[in-house]
């Protein structure tokens, strides 16, 4: 079959913006077999494989695409599975445009090969057609504890289980999956996919213990006492940051973590939920990252009549993935760029202290910004324009300006050192911490980052733990 020299990727079939803005179903619907075959034919199968160097877990990309091209979809899955434990997840949430696809030769003139879309296709095909459950590898007799069941923990657990380690994953919440279940919304990553990945791990012999808060229920030292020979800490990012402006405790102000946890993990998006959330009204989301996009699009689907994104820099500096921003705009979310909140305004009835509306958000006061000199990271620093304050009428505000690492493990583990931001200090090539036998990766180390970089860190640590315990 001749190579497909089209300059454009096969488009991703998606729900129409006006439709999807009112449901929690997945936005992108995935390639058909025909589209996958056609897209795979765009790959030039370059000898030097630049795309692989752009992948944090080094998936053998040209090799799996060649299998797709042959129509051997299960074979393609097996190629991906050699290096990635969560292809159905990564095919959906990886920022391929800054990773594998940014290195694709086809991208020099035209669009790169739709590597992420093909990865998703292959993983979904496997999940729909695979008949054999994974089987446990022969035991090597070693026990390893993994703290946290998010992307880094699941990856680390999966890699170790494949090598015959007896792995126990300790999860603080009642459901495994970490940020994949409490943070990323259903319309970007269906929970059934995460559950499938967790079930696969269990089939491979991994024990998943929920309701275990390491640092509280058990400490790392106690885990060693229980016979675990190495520990991987993938406890994720922690407490949400706030702006420290007046009005942040008003009723109707949420952190993005709280807003998304209510909707995703606690299923507040249901018509008759058991956990409440603000539905409808006008919503302002403060921040410009992927989490802000998720919160804004969730608010819209919960029935908001108007959703604003308030970000203090311009579109060029917006840190969210381009695709997410585009989706948000198509759905009708209004971007208030170069604006910074200075105060959240609330209702106060001076005549009735018991008025239930007291303390409810009525608006957000912002000031316009302009870009000044570049800061140390080269991003132009936003400077307030004096006298330019204005008020947006809103009744819900979601603050999405980042998180700081969770203090629970650090404060209960002697010998585990953290940097000035609270991130666990590790050796980059191994994930080894300052405490013997303890490895770490993901947001607990780096602060809020991507699913795939956390998976990469889980992988690196799994390899290092294997070397450490094989000595």
């Amino acid at each position: 079959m001749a190579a497909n020299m089209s300059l454009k990727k096969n488009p991703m079939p998606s729900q129409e913006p006006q439709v999807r803005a009112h449901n929690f179903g997945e936005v992108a619907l995935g390639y058909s077999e025909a589209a996958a075959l056609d897209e795979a034919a765009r790959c030039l199968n370059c000898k030097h494989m630049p795309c692989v160097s752009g992948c944090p877990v080094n998936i053998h990309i040209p090799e799996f695409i060649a299998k797709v091209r042959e129509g051997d979809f299960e074979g393609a899955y097996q190629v991906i599975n050699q290096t990635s434990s969560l292809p159905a997840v990564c095919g959906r949430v990886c920022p391929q445009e800054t990773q594998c696809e940014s290195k694709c030769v086809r991208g020099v003139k035209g669009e790169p090969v739709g590597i992420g879309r093909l990865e998703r296709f292959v993983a979904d095909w496997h999940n729909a057609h695979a008949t054999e459950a994974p089987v446990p590898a022969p035991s090597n007799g070693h026990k390893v504890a993994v703290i946290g069941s998010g992307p880094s923990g699941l990856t680390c657990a999966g890699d170790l289980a494949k090598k015959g380690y007896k792995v126990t994953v300790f999860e603080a919440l009642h459901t495994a999956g970490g940020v994949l279940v409490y943070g990323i919304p259903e319309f970007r990553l269906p929970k059934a996919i995460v559950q499938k990945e967790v079930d696969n791990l269990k089939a491979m012999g991994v024990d998943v213990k929920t309701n275990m808060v390491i640092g509280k229920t058990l400490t790392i030292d106690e885990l060693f006492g229980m016979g675990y020979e190495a520990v991987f800490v993938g406890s994720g990012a922690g407490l949400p940051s706030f702006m420290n402006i007046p009005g942040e405790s008003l009723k109707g102000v949420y952190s993005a973590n709280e807003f998304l946890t209510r909707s995703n993990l606690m299923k507040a998006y249901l018509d008759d939920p058991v956990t409440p959330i603000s539905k409808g009204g006008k919503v302002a989301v403060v921040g410009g990252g992927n989490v802000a996009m998720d919160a804004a699009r969730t608010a819209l689907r919960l029935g908001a009549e108007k959703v604003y994104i308030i970000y203090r820099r311009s579109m060029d500096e917006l840190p969210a993935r381009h695709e997410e921003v585009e989706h948000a705009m198509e759905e009708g979310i209004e971007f208030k760029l170069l604006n910074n909140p200075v105060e959240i305004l609330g209702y106060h009835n001076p005549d009735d202290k018991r008025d239930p509306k007291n303390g409810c958000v009525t608006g957000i006061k912002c000031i316009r910004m302009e870009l000044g000199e570049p800061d140390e990271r080269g991003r132009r620093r936003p400077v307030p324009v004096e006298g330019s304050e204005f008020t947006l009428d809103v009744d819900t505000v979601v603050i999405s300006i980042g998180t700081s690492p969770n203090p629970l493990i650090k404060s209960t583990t002697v010998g585990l050192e953290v940097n000035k931001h609270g991130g666990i200090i590790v050796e980059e090539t191994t994930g080894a911490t300052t405490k013997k036998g303890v490895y770490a990766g993901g947001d607990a180390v780096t602060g809020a980052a991507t699913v795939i970089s956390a998976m990469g860190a889980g992988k690196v640590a799994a390899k290092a733990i294997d070397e450490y315990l094989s000595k």
Partner: protein
Amino acid sequence: MYKIVAKKCLNPTVTMMDIEAPFVAAKAQPGQFIILRTDADGERIPLTIAGYDRTAGTVKIIFQIVGATTEKLNHKEAGDFLQDFVGPLGMPTEIEGLKKVCIVGGGVGCAIALPIAQALHAAGCEVTSVIGFRNKDLLILEDEFKAASDRLFVMTDDGSYGRHGNVCVPLNEMFEAGEKFDKVITIGPLIMMKFVVAATKPTGIPCVVSMNPIMIDGTGMCGGCRLIVGGKTKFACVDGPDFNGYEVDFDSAMERGTMFRDFERHAHEETCNLFNKEVK
């Protein structure tokens, strides 16, 4: 799943349960809390630990039936199971080195105050307890407090039992008589704690309050339990639940506590209707 090994009604709206949770029982300290879900797809609710038996591996909870989830919880019997039970969460109450302490509990808050009084009493501290209730029917744990205190004041708002008046009455009397304490520790409704703090302030005695804001994960992730303490944002789940009472912004905490009141009332009614239908 976590087994309910014992259940006892303390009054028409307050129930005590012992839950089999050996990992939590092994670590629990006075002042810490747990989070539970009654059923799959249930809501997560925080409850402060009212006691623990490390040998039996059980944790005691005492809860007031105020909403849908506590209503569902109260419909469970000994031998039934809870879906989830996680803890111990939060920082323990600091009791080390205290020689003379006044514990002030209000309503179901007394359930949380009791293990603190017991721990202090066991450590040889002189404990004065003031416990207050709306009326005689709502009185709980009197005998337990008697056993853990050197001096006990029982107050009711309507005078139907003990002394007539709120918890600040004996507190003010003691302060006026020049009595000194190393610490005043108070647990109960926000408005009561606010008044206890105000009554204690002129004495300069340190006053610790136990906060119980709205909470979801309880592990330092969602930020829903935030409070203004000393002008800064603090998180009850990891920084608390105990805070310096002089620094807590009670007015903002009281307002935030009502954030979902309409929803909660509706959900509670729905749950009651559901149970009533089952009975019919």
